């Protein structure tokens, strides 16, 4: 059975627009202009139990809206959702017992009371027995290293400390499915690493399904084998991260820095006739040659350039995931064989 099954899911919002000027404002009092905007536009996908899936897209692509429908907060305009075998918003109270959610931008701990009091309340809310709690949470608390934070009120914690507590709070009932909405936003590298390691561990140990949205692609690279890419409310790519890279990142970048004064036409002239696209990065003062991944071509270009100008530095880079994703957004679609 699939943990998440979504078919033709759609969510529309009314977007009101204000008329301009004083006259417009008065008219707005009586009738308002609005447009119906589909935030999520007929998407379909499914996620197997135990998978870790990255759900990515630009701001406003519809990621959070999807997560909110999957968690039963929002009612879809149309389409079918089946999560953990249930319809999220129809059987909300029974359903949310089987999921854990972390919203990176809002806290689910009670602000004014100690962390352990929040845990205690959540333990009651999710009807977790003492043995289960001891067994599971001791481990979580130790791994996330939050033991010393338990008796502090949430408002006194730093962001990194709070995020670790949030994660622990989402796992109190050891849910088989975990939604993480930008869990590493604003965190430093060490905390990020700790959280990633922890997520991997619970995935292995309990076969927990994880759906992760983030703008930090290194999170996705570290955790997810599969990505679902969203743009304008539509799924534009659904498949392995590896395939995405293989198929789209077959280019290489050659970075050159010169000792003498060189300009763009000069380098273009030197490599005339070769399939190269030159760019000049003014900030770094680097000339970048975008080429296909062809060993022979790389050597040829380097040979030509080195012969023509005095070189300070050379680098050969693979196109980064970020670059790939950016390209996809710019083109708006992906074709992967």
């Amino acid at each position, binding site marked *: 059975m699939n943990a998440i099954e979504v078919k033709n899911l759609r969510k529309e919002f009314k977007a009101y627009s204000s008329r301009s000027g004083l006259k417009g404002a008065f008219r707005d009092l009586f009738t308002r202009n609005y447009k119906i905007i589909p935030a999520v536009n007929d998407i379909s996908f499914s996620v197997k139990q135990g998978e870790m899936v990255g759900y990515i897209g630009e701001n406003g692509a519809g990621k959070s809206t999807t997560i909110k429908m999957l968690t*039963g907060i*929002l009612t879809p305009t149309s389409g079918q959702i089946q999560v953990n075998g249930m319809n999220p918003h129809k059987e909300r109270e029974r359903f*949310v017992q089987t*999921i854990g959610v972390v*919203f990176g931008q*809002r806290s689910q701990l009670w602000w*004014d*009371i100690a962390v352990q009091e929040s845990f205690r309340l959540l333990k009651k*809310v999710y*009807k977790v027995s003492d043995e289960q709690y001891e067994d599971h949470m001791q481990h979580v608390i130790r791994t996330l290293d939050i033991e010393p934070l338990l008796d502090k009120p949430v408002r006194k914690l730093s962001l990194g400390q709070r995020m670790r507590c949030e994660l622990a709070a989402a796992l109190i009932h050891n849910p088989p499915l975990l939604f993480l909405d930008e869990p590493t936003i604003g965190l430093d590298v060490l905390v990020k690493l700790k959280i990633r390691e922890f997520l991997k561990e619970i995935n292995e140990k309990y076969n927990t399904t994880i759906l992760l949205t983030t703008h930090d692609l290194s999170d996705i690279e570290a955790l997810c084998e599969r990505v679902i890419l969203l743009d304008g409310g539509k799924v534009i790519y659904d498949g392995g991260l590896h395939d995405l890279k293989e198929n789209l990142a077959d280019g290489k970048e050659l970075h050159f820095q010169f000792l003498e004064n060189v300009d763009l036409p000069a380098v273009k002239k030197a490599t005339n006739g070769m399939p190269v696209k030159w760019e000049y990065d003014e900030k770094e003062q680097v000339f970048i040659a975008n080429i296909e991944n062809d060993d022979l071509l790389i050597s040829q270009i380097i040979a030509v350039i080195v012969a023509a100008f005095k070189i300070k530095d050379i680098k050969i880079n693979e196109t980064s995931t970020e670059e790939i994703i950016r390209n996809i957004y710019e083109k708006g679609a992906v074709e992967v064989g």
Partner: protein
Amino acid sequence: MDKYIEMIRVRFLMMLAYRTNYYTGILIYGINIGAYYFLWTAIYGGKEEIQGVSVVQMTTYVAISWMARAFYFNNLDREMAQEIMEGKVAVELIRPYNYLGMKTMQGLGEGIFRLFFFSLPGLLIVYFIFPIQFSWDLSVWSLFALSILLSFFINTQLNLLTGITTFFLYNNAGLIRAKRVIIDLFSGLLLPISFFPGWVQSIMKFLPFQGISYVPSMIFTKGFTQQEAWAAIGQQFIWVIILIIPIQLLWYLAKKQMVIQGG
């Protein structure tokens, strides 16, 4: 049920986290009772009684209505409005509990806290300063207890109703303020209902407000006979039942067209 009781406990802890609020609260209630006491003695101006109510009865009425207010009063409407406006309601909806039920329990936790750590000590102080007539009749106390519990529910239901409207209005600070003034006036907190003109009284019979403050205060000051008291409590109870309907209806509509604000 466990989780709801735990919520009352958590609310206790939250009240304790803000001690200054607690102390200033006592002070404000003390000042209010004092002000109304002097106002009423000035109005009576040596007269034995107005509308069949003696000055001592009036003072007791004022003191007891403010102390009862500490129990039934809460800011659930404002809290809900804030949670909805900031989008925090999303977090509430991913928990396996009834949001409105949990809010009611938070209000109850707050009310019980205030009743024991605020009303009781406050009443003791007031008792020594102002001429107040206390009844030690157990049946009066138990009727009063039942009545303020129902007051709490009516007031909380009105708060929930006001809170839910945030889903439709996005910003309802004005409505919240208006509701508070209406409740203070029409519930009989500022002025006993029997002091209103006859036609206002007959309208108010059909509104839930007097069930909030007038009924318990009248029971306590023995302004009601036992029979009248039971009838009034019955009316309170009916209002509690009736108010469930618009709440459930609005909540259903709200969930359907909910927008989580702020991402």
